[in-house]
């Protein structure tokens, strides 16, 4: 069973990474920004797992699992922040979070 080699996967992950980055850079809703960050982390995971298969080394998969946990933690904190912002009746728009500047 010979499928696409690892460069395909990595290229795909690069595309995903770029899409995620674009999301972070373009979107103003913090929730979508968080979702985009998830895409970025997942793209890295894809690369890791792809390389793990390519190298025949489980370490990559382990790394990916750990990244998942980290991503989940970030989501928790990020969502907590969004909830807190919402509680303070602050518009969920990162462009309006600009009291600190200059």
């Amino acid at each position, binding site marked *: 069973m010979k499928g696409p080699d690892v460069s395909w996967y990595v290229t795909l992950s690069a595309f995903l990474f770029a899409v995620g980055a674009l999301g*972070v*850079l373009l979107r103003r809703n913090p929730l979508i920004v968080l979702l985009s960050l998830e895409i970025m982390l997942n793209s890295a995971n894809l690369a890791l797992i792809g390389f793990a298969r390519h190298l025949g080394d489980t370490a990559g998969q382990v790394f990916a699992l750990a990244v998942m946990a980290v991503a989940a933690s970030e989501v928790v904190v990020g969502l907590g922040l969004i909830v807190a912002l919402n509680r303070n009746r602050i518009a969920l728009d*990162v462009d309006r*979070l*600009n009291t600190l500047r*200059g």
Partner: protein
Amino acid sequence: MITAAWICLLSPLAASLAITLGGTRLSRRQAGYAATFSVLVSFVAALVAFFQLLNDAPEERSHVSTLWTWLSAGEFEVGLSILVDPLSVFMMLVVSGVGFLIVAYSIGYMDGSDEERRYFAYMALFVFSMLLLVQSGDLVILLSGWGLVGLCSYLLIGYNQERPQAIAAAKKAFIMNAFGDATMALALFVLIQRLGTLEYGGVFSQIDSVGGDWAMSLIALGLLGGAVAKSAQIPLHTWLPDAMEGPTPVSALIHAATMVTAGVYMLVRLNPVFEQAPGVQDLAAGLGATTLLVAGLIALVQTDIKRVIAYSTMSQIGYMFLGAGLASYGNSMFHLMTHAFFKALLFLGAGIVIHALVSEQDIHRMGGLGRLLPKTYAAMLIGALALAGIPPLAGFFSKDSLLAAALEAGPYGQLLWAVGLAGTFLTGLYTFRMIFIVFGGEPSPFVREHLHRPGHTMPALWMAWTVGALAVLSVVGGWIQFAGLWHPLSDFIEPVAVSGVEPSGLQDAVTSVLAVGLGLTGIGIAWWIYSARRAVVPRFALAQQVLEHKFYFDELYDAVFYRPGVWVAHAAMRFVEGPLIAGSIRGLTEGTRLVATRVTEAQTGLLRTYALALGSGAAILTLVFLAVRA
């Protein structure tokens, strides 16, 4: 002898310090006595030194005494040393002698001025400085004395601190002299570079090894610059008439008898140096001749009694320069001495007049004083005759032998001789113009109104006896030397300065006759116009104007130096200091601030911008890494 010389030098300094530090603990009159006494001590010490020196054989009459090393650097050393030799002793005698009389006169003249202490401290300091100048054994010490007399001159010209003209005159005098000091210093630098020493003995013995006419001329020119400035010779003469703002005894002491003749002293003292640069020597003589003529002409139109005398001083020093430049050292020094006598006398006499007329100095407001102040008139007359070179008064002997020497000194000398003769005519004319206007005729209304006759008070007596003493000296002072017949003074100075010209008896006689004749002619014309009033004063508009503007020297210097200087200073302030120096730092800070504002504007507060910066940073870094390596 050395001890006496040191006492002579330091005694006035001690008095000056004592008066300064004593402050109000000394009464005003005590200050005067202290100063007078200290100068008297100097004079006595000078006499002692003189007689001790006479005990030595003529060729051994040179003694150097060094107190301590004054300055040193590497191999170069300057000792705080004095030289006692015939020339310095002669000058010590003149300075302390005339100085003593004038300081004593001041006790009377300055009585009632509320800052007498300052005056006497300055006077004593001046005598010290002048003695330092003449006694120094090293060119640096000479220059120090040179500078210090200039300083004292400044202080005393500006004695009337509230008078702006006095202060301006004082500054002018100091700055023109500073210029002379600077050129002297440059000459000294050449000497240091070439010879490594500035001690007289060392300099004179090695002077022929300076190497190069150029260097030698530079040295001589530099020194001459100092002499010209100090002695108010053309072209650095304009300060002297203004210096008459000082109290009259100051004019007598500093601006007639002693300080202004320091240039002559230097020409004589440093004759071995100048003789290596004959061109410069000729220049000195030429400058002297020009000055004597120009000053004599200007004196014709002056209306201030002191300024008339001041121009005559310039003119007389011109004679001395002429003599010294033509290597007739003995006669130069002789004229220096007699001039000190009669010029001091004239000034002090004028001082009495001014004093009597409550500080009025304009001769046209005077008149008829001869009857009111007969003794003063007599004294002034003696001075004036001596100045005009009428025998048997002092001026006759010294001036004529000096001119006679010029006749001997080749074609150039003869030219100068002619100029000098013309000068004697002018001398007679302007001197007696003054005498006749001031003393002759009927008392003017002004005089009637303002004259206050000095009684037989203490101050008046101090003034009287000193003037008397000077009058006597002006009469007999010339008798110590007569042409080729009798010249102990020239002989005495011979070990220091060998005169290069010896006029013959015939030359002496011709010169004397012509000089006296011209002098008398001048006096006669003066009498004709100003006393007998047979003729009106001739008017030549152009000449009048030129003379009244003193040949436009002041205007010239104003246009050439002062105005451009001020302009440059303004320009420096306006175009360099402001925009460039202060502006550059302001521009720099403002520029940085501007950049800073831009940088902080990028800090939009939007996290998307921040992520963008991070992302593009990473992208660029990656791109660069890939590009560099692959």
